[in-house]
């Protein structure tokens, strides 16, 4: 008997809750202000681009509806805030725990399996993404940028988006061994943030570029949230959700396999 293939019982102990409560405890004691600071980034973008630049741009058309420029970009920034919350947690924090804190190493000598650790850590990332999103939605409400009651559904939608990014992000981070390599993630995220129909409609691109942008996850997030806050949501937007469901499943399998390989070889 040579190759022994681990089944689910060796991957999951059903105790992701203990990983979550450890994370909450650690955040309370050390990382509180770092968490808060991440909230402001999209708020600054909204103020400068949406309110400032928006005064020059006026109204734009989205799904056949004329809306103020700030209302056009705010949902995109909301999607981005969810993504950022998830990414910060699943890259910077996870990187530290993997390479310096040896937290996962400890967890995996207990009955916890890689899937418990992945789920627990990802849930923490979602918590953060969800907090940012709720805060940002509040800011949007304050500026009158939520044009429909469906805007409230943007919160669960952002959490699903964050789930997708966190589950893939944690797996990717597991390949990184030096801090400098984390910059690669930013190198990928920044253009995605700027070009995913965040600040202008997809139609400005030639067709080939459009297809490329549509393949990226953030575009799906932006479209989904925008439809919800502008009130233009229809059944046609459901495939964006499907995109993230696939991303979540693939990410979870990828990440728990990586943890298994790293710590339970």
């Amino acid at each position, binding site marked *: *008997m*040579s190759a*022994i293939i*681990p*089944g689910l*019982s*060796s991957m999951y*102990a059903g*105790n992701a809750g*203990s*990983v979550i*409560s*450890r994370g909450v*405890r*650690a955040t309370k*004691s*050390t*990382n509180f202000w770092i968490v808060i600071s991440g909230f402001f980034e999209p708020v600054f973008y909204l103020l400068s681009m949406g309110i400032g630049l928006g005064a020059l741009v006026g109204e734009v058309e989205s799904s056949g509806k004329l809306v103020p420029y700030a209302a056009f970009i705010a949902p995109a920034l909301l999607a981005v805030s969810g993504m950022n919350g998830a990414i910060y947690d699943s890259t910077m924090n996870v990187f530290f725990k993997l390479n310096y*804190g*040896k*937290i996962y*190493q*400890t*967890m*995996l*000598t*207990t*009955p*916890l*399996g890689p899937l418990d650790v992945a789920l627990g850590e990802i849930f923490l990332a979602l918590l953060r993404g969800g907090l940012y999103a709720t805060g940002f939605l509040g800011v949007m409400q304050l500026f009158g940028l939520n044009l429909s009651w469906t805007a409230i559904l943007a919160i669960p939608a952002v959490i699903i988006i964050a789930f997708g990014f966190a589950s893939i992000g944690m797996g990717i981070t597991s390949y990184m061994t030096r801090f400098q390599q984390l910059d690669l993630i930013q190198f990928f995220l920044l253009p995605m943030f700027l070009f995913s129909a965040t600040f202008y409609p997809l139609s400005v691109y030639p067709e080939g570029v459009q297809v490329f942008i549509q393949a990226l996850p953030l575009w799906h997030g932006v479209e989904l949230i925008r439809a919800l806050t502008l009130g233009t949501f229809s059944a046609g937007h459901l495939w964006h959700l499907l995109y993230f469901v696939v991303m979540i499943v693939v990410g979870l399998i990828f990440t728990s396999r990586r943890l298994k390989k790293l*710590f*339970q*070889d």
Partner: protein
Amino acid sequence: MPNPVISAKSLVKKFKDFEAVKGIDFEVEPGESFGLLGPNGAGKSTTMRMIGAVSNRTSGDLEILGMDPSVDGPKIRAQLGVVPQADNLDQELKVWENLYVYGRYFGIDKKIVKDRLEGLLDFAQLKDKRNEKIDDLSGGMKRRLTIARGLMNEPKIFLLDEPTTGLDPQARHILWDRLFRLREQGTTLVLTTHYMDEAEQLADRLIVVDKGQIMAEGSPAALIRQYSSREVAEVRFGSDSNRSAADALSGVGDRIEVLPDRILIYANNGEEILSEVHRRGLVPITSLVRRSSLEDVFLKLTGRSLID
């Protein structure tokens, strides 16, 4: 005879081209204190990781508490206490939180965890440090906390990988005392070490491992009886003259080992050997007589010292 708690047969672990463990067999009885003695890179830690159900064997059979670690990893780990080679305490948490959170990883009820952690803080002599940060603890305290943490789930088998490496002598003795108490309470201990004195102190029975293979097995005393003489005379003539002095000493004692810095002469009576050295007109710079130790056993078995 009770069933062994650990049973390994032809156990092999390969990493790509490198064979870290090359087919070893051993059993550990309940309540026993079992040691793996060997130099760095002998395959001790790899073996420990397989016993700890965090590393899959490449081939062979391994049973821990009657279960197969590649099938029932979580169930086995639930009953193990683990003290890794490097301290991996949670630096973002306080001393008591480290114990608390760890207990929760095992799914142990909050109330029970809180009860147990008081006893464990006491055991680790860290009661007055309960609210300290990990960074503020000394090396010995961190080690004691790691050991206390490993006891949180009241393990059936306690695995200690190099428990006192890097500690000063006083901290080591405090730690040995703690481990000795566990032994008295009947906890099954499995420990690796490259310190012969540690193995002699803590192990009822041990295997000597080198390059992924078992070289010998037995109690420390039996191994010394079998592979070494009762006493050893150590003489030094300076690094340049040791070789020539050794030639002049041929036939003295049962066996002679020439090390870079000294000559070891094995015999039943060390003092007699020293007199013989002087009778042959040799004047060592320093000399001493001591009892044989596991270090000598290792030297005999492998031709090398434990700590290179």
